[in-house]
C-alpha cells in the first residue's frame, strides 16, 4: 500500500539541549505540511514527538549536549512512523506509574508517555544492546488522502 510518490524519509540528529526540541518540531511540521493533514492531527503528532524527544534529552541523555538524539520520520501514503533514539540506559516501561491514578494526580511529572499513547495509535519501546532507547511512534493518517483529488491535480 505504499505509493511511491508519497514515500518519504527524513533523518535528523541533534544535540541534547531543550532548544533542540524546537528544531525537531520544525522538521516535523514541515514534513507534515506536505501531507496536508488537518491541524488537529498534525498537532497531536507534533506533541507526541515533543514528549519523546524531551524524554530522550532528559532521561536518556541526561541533558548532556554531546549526546545525540536521532529522529527518523517515515511517511508513506497511509501511515507516519517516527523513531526517536537516545544514548541512555533505558528503563522498564512496565514499571511506569499511571499518572491518572488518584495518588499520582498531583505529581508534577509522569505524563509524557501517556501523551504519546493518547496522541498516536501505537507506541513501542526498544532497548539497544549497545545502550540507547528507541521509542517508535505510529499513526495511521485519516485526513490525508493518498491520491490527490481531481481538484488538487488541476491546481
Amino acid at each position, binding site marked *: 500500500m505504499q505509493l511511491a510518490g508519497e514515500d518519504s524519509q527524513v533523518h535528523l540528529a541533534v544535540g541534547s539541549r531543550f532548544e533542540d526540541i524546537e528544531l525537531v518540531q520544525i522538521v516535523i511540521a514541515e514534513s507534515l505540511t506536505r501531507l496536508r493533514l488537518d491541524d488537529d492531527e498534525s498537532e497531536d503528532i507534533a506533541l507526541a514527538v515533543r514528549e519523546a524527544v524531551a524524554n530522550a534529552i532528559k532521561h536518556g541523555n541526561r541533558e548532556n549536549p554531546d549526546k545525540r538524539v536521532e529522529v527518523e520520520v517515515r511517511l508513506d501514503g497511509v501511515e507516519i512512523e517516527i523513531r526517536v533514539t537516545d544514548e541512555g540506559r533505558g528503563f522498564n516501561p512496565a514499571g511506569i506509574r499511571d499518572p491518572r491514578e488518584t495518588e499520582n494526580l498531583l505529581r*508534577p511529572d509522569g505524563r*509524557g508517555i501517556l501523551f504519546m499513547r493518547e496522541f498516536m495509535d501505537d507506541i513501542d519501546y526498544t532497548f539497544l544492546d549497545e545502550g540507547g532507547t528507541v521509542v517508535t511512534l505510529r499513526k495511521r493518517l485519516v485526513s490525508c488522502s493518498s491520491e490527490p483529488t481531481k481538484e488538487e491535480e488541476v491546481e
Partner: protein
Amino acid sequence: MKIDARHEKGVTILEPRGKITIGVGDVALRNAVAEALTAGASDILVNLEHVTTIDSSGIGELVSAYTTVTNRGGKLKLEKIPPKVSDILQITQLIQVFEIYDDEKEAVDSF
C-alpha cells in the same frame, strides 16, 4: 513565552502567551506564580486563552502551581482553556482537579 499579570477584585490573573513547554514556558510560568505569591497574592486565575501549545512539562507546572498555592491556603483556578488544553486535562484526568471557567467575571467572583 510572555506572561502578563493583572488584578481584578483581589484576584491575580496570569495570562501566559504562546508555548508552555519544556525548558522555556514551564520555567516562565513557575516564575510568574512565584512572583505573584511573593507579591502577596493568594487567589490566582490563570487565563489559558492565548496558549498555543502545552506539553507534559507545562501541565506539570500548572499542577505544581496548584499545589503550591493550595498549600499556602490560596486558590488557583483556570479560565478560557483552548480545546487542545481541554483534551489534555481530560486525558490526564486533571479536569477533576482544576476549577475551570469560561467567563472571567464568574471566575473572579468564585474566589
